[in-house]
């Protein structure tokens, strides 16, 4: 693990942390200018913490990480030094919102991804922050409004029709269940025929703004944005947000990096709340009618595919998801066949271990999430559908388009660049 261990454990306050990472970021940018990066860039991993009331206190947070052999050593309120009991310091962990924490680290990118993946996969109380292509679509609109049009940005589009292949793929290893490597299976690409889109686009914001919408209409994988750079308003470079909540600081300012994290986290936290408010199903007393009535409240999450799946793809998707312990959607259940391309699954989100009821067809998916099931389940589902099944899929919670929910979640969130 290569990181500035001697510095991190000397940090005594949030202010010192920001100063430390600010200095670190300036050094790395100078090295990047000279094309001689000596140490890894500062990276952040945003994580959602579940676990009810326990997760809302510092003690609870320490207990949740402690169960996964990570000791959180308090620095000040909601800020900790995170130490892996086996491998040593992992970084600094800060609670940015009641349900979202950020791990700041200077580990190498691969090491950090591996460390985080191991942590998340083994804990039903931790999950990635899932930014779907639809969410990125709204964030991209924000970038165009908040940044000057001559600034450069970077978008990455990733779509891989893993269920549309000419031969059965092997069961994914635990390591690649959720976050496949961009470079994985390159040698196989010429052998297994399936649609796979993964490319990055770097250009001026104004140029992309002019072309992207038209291009998306022609070629739907361009809806599957998996990375987006927020250009820094205070200097060169920007902050690269990934679909699993990883964020790389490619600027000279950690303060600016953290402000962008807070900006996106505020939006995401609102989105989680509104998803749960609308989608949670439960039986409630009917307040308006003070009789002995109960009513069912909640809205289904509906995903509609732009193009229907072929029967082969549908069958392979169902088989690869529910006949394998490890599957990309991290779902468990016994499908009940109701037709050639229709199944019902009264199953479980295998990551958060929460019930989830699904109707899956060639045209889309309907999900019922019982009261208490985390909204992250919905965002992971939408992200994975765009990534692996239909990049242009549309999603709704009840009658409300998912995209509009993201837009509403972003309304009024301050783009506050001086926050600490």
């Amino acid at each position, binding site marked *: 693990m290569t990181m500035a261990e001697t510095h991190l454990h000397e940090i005594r306050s949030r202010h010192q942390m920001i100063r430390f990472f600010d200095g670190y970021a300036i050094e790395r940018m100078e090295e990047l200018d000279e094309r001689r990066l000596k140490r890894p860039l500062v990276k952040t991993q945003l994580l959602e913490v579940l676990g009810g009331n326990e997760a809302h206190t510092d003690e609870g947070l320490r207990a949740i990480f402690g*169960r996964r052999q990570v000791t959180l050593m308090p620095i000040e309120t909601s800020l900790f030094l995170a130490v892996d009991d086996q491998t040593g310091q992992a970084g600094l962990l800060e609670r940015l919102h009641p349900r979202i924490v950020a791990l700041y680290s200077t580990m190498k990118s691969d090491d950090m991804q591996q460390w985080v993946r191991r942590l998340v996969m083994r804990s*039903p109380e931790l999950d990635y922050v899932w930014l779907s292509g639809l969410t990125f679509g709204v964030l991209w609109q924000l970038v165009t409004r908040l940044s000057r049009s001559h600034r450069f940005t970077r978008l990455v589009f990733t779509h891989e029709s893993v269920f549309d292949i000419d031969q059965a793929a092997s069961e994914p290893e635990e390591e690649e269940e959720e976050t496949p490597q961009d470079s994985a299976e390159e040698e196989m690409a010429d052998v297994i025929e399936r649609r796979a889109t993964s490319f990055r686009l770097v250009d001026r914001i104004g140029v992309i703004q002019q072309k992207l919408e038209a291009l998306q209409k022609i070629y739907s994988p361009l809806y599957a944005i998996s990375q987006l750079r927020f250009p820094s308003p205070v200097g060169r470079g920007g902050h690269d947000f990934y679909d699993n909540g990883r964020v790389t600081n490619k600027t000279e300012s950690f303060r600016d990096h953290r402000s962008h994290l807070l900006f996106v986290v505020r939006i995401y936290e609102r989105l989680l709340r509104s998803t749960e408010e609308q989608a949670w*199903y*439960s*039986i409630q007393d*009917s307040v*308006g*009618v*003070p*009789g*002995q*009535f*109960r*009513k*069912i*409240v*909640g*809205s*289904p999450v*509906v995903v509609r595919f732009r193009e229907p799946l072929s029967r082969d793809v549908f069958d392979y998707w169902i088989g690869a998801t529910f006949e394998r*312990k490890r599957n990309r959607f991290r779902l*468990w*259940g*016994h499908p*009940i066949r*109701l*037709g*050639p*391309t*229709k199944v*019902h699954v*009264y*199953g*479980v989100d*295998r990551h*958060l*271990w*929460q*019930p989830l*009821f*699904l*109707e899956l*067809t*060639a*045209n889309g998916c*309907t999900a*019922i999430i*019982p*009261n208490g099931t985390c909204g992250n389940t919905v965002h992971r589902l939408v992200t994975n559908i765009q990534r692996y099944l239909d990049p242009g899929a549309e999603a709704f919670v*009840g*009658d409300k388009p998912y995209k509009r929910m993201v837009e509403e979640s972003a309304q009024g969130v301050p783009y506050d660049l001086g926050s600490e």
Partner: protein
Amino acid sequence: MGTESLRSSTSMALQYTPSLHCSRCLLTCVWWAQQAGIAMRDGVRPDAVLTRESDRKFAFAECKARSFGPTSSTAEQARSLLVVAGPRAAEVLGLASGQVADSLLAFVVPEAGRELLAPTLVSLGKELDEKRMSVGRFSVLSLVLTDTDVSIMTDELGSSFFGLPSGASPFMEREPDTDPRPLYFIPYDPDIGQSEEEKVFCKRVLFERMQSTVVAAVGHANPPMDVVFASQKILNSSMFGVYGQWENRDSARHMRQLCRHFMGEIMQAVNKEVPNTMLFEPGKGWKVTLGSPQQQDNVLDAMSHFSCDRLDLRTQPDHTLLDALEDDGPASGAG
């Protein structure tokens, strides 16, 4: 009861009513009707009550697989529902007068039964009217299946009451050779008359839901610890809390028997793979011991591989000694 009806934001909210609560009023009506030589049934309850709270509209909805005539036994129930949906609706529902601004009895039948049912209801209404019994208005709604969708067909009154366009309103897409049923909120209700085939399907769904409840709880646990399941908790989790509202003691007991049957089977499957992990403790429920993360993984594997498909869904579970070891009261008090 399924999801599709709620997929779009219907203008009326569905109120699930295990029973109607001012039965004294209905009993009086029934007594009166019986004195007048009219066959009516007490203790009726519609399948659901739809309400729009903003203007206090109530629709008493009753679904039937086929139409019926004025001399059939179903007509007795229909007479009661016509009275329930009438001017005394507020009283029957246990509400203050004025809290029901408008009410309606809505029968839902397959399209083939629509034209036959309306004259029956007219005849029953006239019969009650002649005996000076106030009845409510009624609407016959029908379900129409085409190759591409499922629609609800409304008559003129239903159209204006529910704010739906007159004629067919599609609410569900349909695929060829595909069962159009939606996901179920309440998978199984022993009080509802169903074909044997339908009962088997609904029990399967109930068992799948119980399995997902158990698997989720074990997966979410942090070993070392014990996870304890009581039948009430399992049934409520599997039915969005509706089991707790069940007032029919026989039905509640039947549901607990099904739960015990399922838990007995899954316990056997778990103990076969991970011996001495799961046991039934009288008065508490089923205890799963998770001594370590490894044991938790093994238990989850055993539970996940267990398939409800293997269970005998046609045979009624036997009344066992375990029945006596749990509270045998109504659903809300069951252990």
